[in-house]
């Protein structure tokens, strides 16, 4: 039973897809959504929760047997970075699944958009005042919550960070995407697509943020260690579609033998696709990172081979599981990987992925 559950979990995690990155700005989580999406998202999460058997269960290395069942009275309170966006709707979906599975109530809140730091602090205060069994926080500002964190600690409520960490030792663990491993997966898929040899280029969206570095280094280091017949060109840095397109075009023109190109976020990947189109190189395989309208369209019409994305449902699920473990006094690792998924034209319309991809 445990083996089968793990297998289902693994499969569903692989099938999950979504990003926490905005369009071309390097936020570590998505922008607020349109009204249109707001109305459609809850409907989708409802229909998804009707079929819990298809949803991801634990999916990680920790077996389900280690998670104690609750008695249905205790509440886990999650304060997210936003509420409307489909990324957060998916996180919520995963959190509620875990709550249902282990018999805990899950309260999920978040500010209207990702600039409302004060609003989020108010929500965290409300969470504290309601005296839940545990609190999860996806901090908008890694430093702003420190006073409240002290109060939460003093009240004896365990706190779990998710999506991004906070500058504090108080959270027992942080549940987040391993960007380095995800970038390695992108490299692995690109190697497969080009048949293991040739010249490839990479466009990184940013060289200063942690996320940007991990997404760049993961790709390069995978190639260096696992693909001896692949030549990796020096990376170009471009965080905007136009600049990324110029950089991609220059690389292709200078290296007509180039067979693959990687873009580390939506803007970089979309620019790479544009550069390939403009230089008339239809054989070039482009792989990207995150989702977003332009990448989804390019993957659907075959201009882009595929992309890796973060897995928000698993993020929500793992956050609640970590909270339950904390409530029961179990040890937690410093960081819990919330996973990632590869998607391409073959699986982009799968319900598990399509429901999560945002435009």
């Amino acid at each position, binding site marked *: 039973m445990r083996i089968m559950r793990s297998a289902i979990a693994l499969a569903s995690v692989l099938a999950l897809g979504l990003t926490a990155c905005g369009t071309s700005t390097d936020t570590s989580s998505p922008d607020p959504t349109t009204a249109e999406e707001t109305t459609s998202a809850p409907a989708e999460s409802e229909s998804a929760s009707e079929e819990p058997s298809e949803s991801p269960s634990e999916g990680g290395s920790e077996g389900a047997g280690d998670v104690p069942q609750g008695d249905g009275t205790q509440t886990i309170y999650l304060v997210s970075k936003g509420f409307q966006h489909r990324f957060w709707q998916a996180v919520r979906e995963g959190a509620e699944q875990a709550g249902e599975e282990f018999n805990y109530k899950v309260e999920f809140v978040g500010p209207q958009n990702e600039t409302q730091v004060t609003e989020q602090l108010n929500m965290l205060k409300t969470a504290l005042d309601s005296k839940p069994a545990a609190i999860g926080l996806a901090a908008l500002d890694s430093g702003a919550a420190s006073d409240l964190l002290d109060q939460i600690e003093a009240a004896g409520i365990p706190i779990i960070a998710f999506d991004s960490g906070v500058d504090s030792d108080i959270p027992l663990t942080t549940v987040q995407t391993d960007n380095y491993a995800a970038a390695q997966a992108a490299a692995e898929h690109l190697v497969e697509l080009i048949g293991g040899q040739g010249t490839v280029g990479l466009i990184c969206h940013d060289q200063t943020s942690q996320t940007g570095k991990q997404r760049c280094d993961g790709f390069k280091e995978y190639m260096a260690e696992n693909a001896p017949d692949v030549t990796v060109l020096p990376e170009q840095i471009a965080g905007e579609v136009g600049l990324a397109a110029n950089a991609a075009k220059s690389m292709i023109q*200078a290296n*007509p033998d180039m067979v693959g190109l990687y873009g580390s976020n939506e803007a970089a990947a979309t620019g790479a696709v544009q550069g390939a189109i403009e230089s008339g190189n239809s054989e070039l395989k482009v792989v990207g990172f995150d989702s977003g309208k332009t990448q989804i369209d390019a993957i659907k019409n075959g201009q882009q081979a595929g992309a890796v994305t973060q897995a928000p449902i698993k993020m929500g699920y793992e956050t609640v599981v970590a909270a339950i473990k904390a409530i029961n006094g179990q040890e937690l690792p410093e960081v819990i990987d919330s996973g990632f998924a590869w998607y391409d034209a073959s699986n982009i319309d799968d319900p598990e992925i399509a429901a999560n991809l945002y435009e």
Partner: protein
Amino acid sequence: MSTTEETKTEVEHEAKKEGRSGSSFQQLLVLLALVAIYVFFMFAAPNFAQLGIAIDILSQSAYIGVMALGTTFIIATGGIDLSSGTGMSLMAVAAGIFLAAPPYWNLPLGAGLLLVLLVGALIGAINGANVAILGLPPFIATLAMMMAARGLALVISQTQTISIANPGYKNLVQGNLIPRFELGGSTIAIPNSVLIFILLAIVAAFLLNKTLLGRYALAIGSNEEATRLSGVNVRFWKMMVYIVGGLFVAIGAILYSGRFGFVQPSEGVGFELNVIAAAVIGGTSLSGGRANITGTVIGALIMQTLTKGLQMMGLRQEWQLVVTGVVVLIAVLIDIQRQRRANAA
């Protein structure tokens, strides 16, 4: 009345003289610099020596170049425009809202483009009013606009990517009015953006050298008080200069967004510095009174040639920025030297 007229003509004449003196020398220098950089990359960067690459440089410098044409007028008055980068982003998003399919406005191409130009003129008019009527320093007025435009772009787009499906929009920029032709075994395609850039450069040169707008802009830049005392409506002409600047930014926005067929609200941050650098490399003096359209075009081309060449050599972005910085520095140093000599004489 006749004396005022006389002084006015004198001011114009002075401005023209001042505007041109020494600039032919600097113009020659920047042209030589462009040629030198180009020849260098022909040998240093693999596959650089193709006509297609030269056309790429032209088309990729078009939006920065066009915005720099407008900014040249503003700098000529001794002003500055920091709002061109995010203003471009705002106008691109506006284009998306006007032209994209419902829930957006889905206007015909002509009407949409006209409205984009209107938005450009409006942004320029607000900058102009703040500078000319309220007397704000141009740096502050346009800094405020830079921030406001960035915010507005995010607000009106609801931070979403907007697809412009209208094929005419993309065709306007990426299409080929000049049919593709074969040359030396490869197909050469000149995108319309290149033609628009050249056409607007001619228009800007005419405005600067042959109309009151250009003459008064230079006159205000060299001596605002004298220009005012000689009966020129300084406020009006300053307003006009910023409106022209806004119009050029709007065309830059169309050129930038037309390449992709979609617009994103967070683009354009920092582009204003490339725009200003293009004008400065081209010999337009930041202290005002001296401006040069040919120089601005060459300035934009120099920067894009550097970027393209260094990219094709496989150099990292960091070094592209360093090299561009050095080029700007050299251009300003030459300008200062020239001014010293002029003052000493």
